[in-house]
């Protein structure tokens, strides 16, 4: 072990190579706190050259590498693996270049999402993907998870905003993918890397697309007696042809937790649910759009609609929405944040079923979600010290996912598979479907150095035990 620490220290410097019991202890999990695992070392490289050196050493000595941003991921993407070295990217936090005429910024992976938007605000630009953890999560982590956020509805997820990447591979070589100028004609390998959850390599430089700050923005708060009516309103807003910037639903339990917190925004505690609808664009078009959204909401049963009076109130609504997960800490020591997507038309019935599942397992379940995308986040509050309760949480989680899949949905919208959902992959994929993904991974990382136990089911595939059966041995690039 000390050989590893010695060699890593020589690359990143002793103070950026962590190996004491306490230092490693706090890295044993990310935003997913179940099943913590301690790494053997954590390194904080300063640049791509150091990352490359670290990866070479780990490959040579046979230690898996787990890339990590701010550790806010909810599927365990940055959770260490037995014997692994965590590569923490927090020190690589420089914005390398801003080119307003191309609307491109080049950043290191440790740059904090919201701070990129702050840095380009005076140029009239912003970085569109805005996960709820935007004030702390890193662009590198967003690339790994293909993160979304409330404004995904209009602006798309991370993959729609990444133009080019630099990727350190398992042999330490640095690969450049994509082009800052836009699409080239080769395979879209940038698209492959975005959302690969750190299984293909470590991203050390990212060129992202910046968007112009919309001229006008209006945010409407529609207050409902129940979550299902709010979902119906979302359906009719989308059907009406509008493309709002965001459509978010917060249920009563979440409203109360947030209103108890520093992120309180004056949301009505007695409401069954609120819908936050935001429209942006040319100021002249906004009043009409707000009017139409209000009509849709009232038809679906909204008892009141109000428009944010000013920027301060609008900011408060969004802070409340984005602080919602953390605020659930008021209900119980742990929170299991689920993430699944269903076709919007099925939202009302799926939501009803999810609430029924929560009741049946006698769990505290709350819903705060990107309704416009059909991206649900059923959150279960629990206490990980209670083994019996944890079992119920996991069983309920499985049933929730099965319900979403049965409704034509998928098992993750933006949090990724990680370790959390790898065994649920078979709910949506047959072995045959997973095979091409494995081919791709092995093309990038044949030795399986990077995050090797993530994404793919732990139960062995038949073709893994007998590669010849499916032509697995004929992969040309292995």
């Amino acid at each position: 072990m000390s050989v590893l620490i010695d060699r890593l220290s020589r690359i990143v410097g002793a103070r950026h190579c962590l190996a004491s019991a306490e230092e490693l202890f706090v890295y044993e999990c990310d935003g997913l706190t179940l099943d913590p695992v301690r790494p053997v070392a954590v390194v904080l490289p300063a640049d791509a050259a150091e990352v490359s050196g670290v990866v070479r050493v780990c490959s040579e000595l046979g230690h898996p590498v787990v890339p990590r941003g701010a550790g806010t991921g909810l599927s365990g993407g940055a959770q260490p693996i037995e014997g692994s070295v965590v590569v923490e990217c927090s020190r690589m936090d420089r914005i390398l270049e801003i080119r307003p005429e191309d609307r491109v910024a080049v950043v290191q992976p440790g740059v904090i999402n919201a701070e990129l938007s702050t840095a380009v605000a005076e140029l009239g630009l912003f970085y569109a993907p805005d996960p709820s953890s935007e004030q702390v999560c890193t662009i590198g982590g967003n690339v790994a998870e293909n993160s979304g956020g409330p404004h995904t509805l209009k602006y798309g997820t991370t993959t729609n905003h990444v133009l080019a990447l630099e990727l350190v591979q398992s042999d330490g070589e640095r690969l450049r993918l994509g082009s800052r100028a836009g699409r080239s004609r080769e395979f879209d390998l940038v698209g492959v890397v975005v959302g690969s959850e750190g299984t293909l390599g470590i991203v050390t430089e990212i060129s992202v697309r910046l968007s112009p700050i919309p001229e006008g923005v209006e945010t409407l708060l529609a207050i409902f007696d129940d979550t299902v009516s709010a979902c119906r309103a979302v359906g009719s807003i989308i059907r009406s042809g509008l493309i709002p910037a965001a459509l978010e639903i917060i249920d009563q339990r979440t409203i109360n937790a947030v209103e108890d917190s520093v992120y309180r925004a004056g949301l009505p505690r007695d409401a069954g649910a609120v819908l936050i609808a935001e429209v942006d664009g040319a100021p002249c078009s906004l009043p009409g759009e707000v009017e139409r959204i209000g009509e849709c909401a009232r038809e679906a049963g909204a008892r009141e609609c109000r428009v944010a009076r000013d920027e301060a109130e609008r900011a408060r609504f969004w802070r409340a929405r984005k602080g919602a997960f953390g605020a659930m800490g008021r209900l119980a020591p742990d929170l299991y944040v689920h993430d699944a997507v269903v076709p919007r038309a099925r939202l009302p019935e799926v939501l009803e079923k999810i609430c029924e599942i929560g009741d049946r397992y006698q769990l505290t379940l709350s819903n705060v979600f990107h309704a416009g995308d059909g991206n649900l986040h059923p959150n279960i509050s629990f206490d990980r010290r209670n083994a019996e309760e944890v079992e119920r949480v996991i069983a309920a989680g499985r049933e929730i996912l099965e319900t979403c899949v049965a409704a034509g949905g998928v098992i993750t919208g933006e949090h990724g598979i990680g370790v959390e959902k790898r065994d649920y992959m078979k709910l949506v994929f047959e072995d045959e479907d997973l095979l091409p993904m494995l081919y791709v991974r092995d093309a990038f990382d044949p030795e399986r150095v990077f995050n090797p136990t993530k994404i793919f089911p732990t139960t062995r595939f038949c073709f893994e035990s007998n590669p010849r059966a499916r032509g697995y041995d004929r992969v040309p690039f292995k």
Partner: protein
Amino acid sequence: MGERKHSSGGLPDSLYQGTLDCVHCGLCLSACPTYRVTGQEIASPRGRIYLMRGVAEGRIELGSGLAQESRLCLGCRACETACPAGVGYGALLEATRSVVARERIDWGIFQRIERMVLRQWVPRPRRLHWALSLLRAFQGLKLDRLAARWLPRNLSGALELAPRVPPASSRRRLPAQTPARGERRGCVAFLEGCVMPELFGDVNRASVELLSRQGFEVLVPEAQGCCGALQAHAGDLETAHALASKNAAAFDALDVDAIVVNSAGCGAALRECEGWIGAAGERTASRVRDISEFLDEVGLRGPLGRVSLRLAYDDPCHLIHAQGVAEAPRRLLKAIPGIDLVEHAEASACCGAAGTYNLAQPEMARAVLDRKLDHLLAAAPECVATGNPGCLMQIASGLARRGSAIRVLHPVEILLEACRGASETQR
């Protein structure tokens, strides 16, 4: 590092329960100055809470790792302002430090001297006065620089960072009673504090004059004194509780509209003394107001004279994060004709003073301060206003080291100038 093992007396149960509020969401990370400097999870609030919980659950030993981390934390509590779950981090930190102190983990010469000074000298006005007179004489003869060469590094650093002690004339105590000027609006008690009268006697006198000019009678009970904040931050809760009890008794005897405090750190400690001494602190805690908050609540009585100044306001951590006061001082300063209040980046971030932190952790304190200075210099004000003695010294010494001419003042000094200016024009 980490070689000395300590058997744990265990962390108190209240601390353990407090750690359970954290769901590990991480929204505190970017607010934490030490995380921003190191990038390390263990130097973040989330990591520290996780470590406390791990120790309490017996999953990891109570040892120098937790001791060192609890000392590396500035105690600025910016994480509390960011925390949606409302984790009471400040109290967790105090409890952890007190266990570390009780178990004497990594207990070196600095800790021993610090405890002695905070216990025996700081809360005793006469002793503190003589000690500082001695330091002033030393400074006059430049003996402090000589002594610095012979002392261990963090002690010599303490001498270098020590502010110039003002002459005895400005270190007089405040009068026990100051009448209201003009139409009387009420009566307040004022916390004189321990270090404030010695190093910032002028600010204390300015505060009393300002309150008096605003129509308030000001009482300074003799029995009041050091608030116990520095002792609590250093893990000496026993002394802190004793001091809080003494202050509570002194102030409970008075029938006043508010207990006005001009030092953010002391205000926070008094305001939270219920957590230390229970019901005995209730009445005091509920009546404490920072001077800016108090004047904002009652409303500044005009007219105000013109003070032409390009001014930056920097939030003391224990005012914005511990007491939740951010807008009041800004509103007051903006109300003065001629004041051009400029915003600098990260005004709510710690400057690195943090009580005795700049002495105990000079390297980190310097890194945190550098970030603050960069932002201040970028905004290029003529003057910085901040309402806490530690911050006043830290920012002033940092700016001086960078060769900047920017002055650092307590907001009351500017407010008083405006009040005085108006009465002069009237005359």
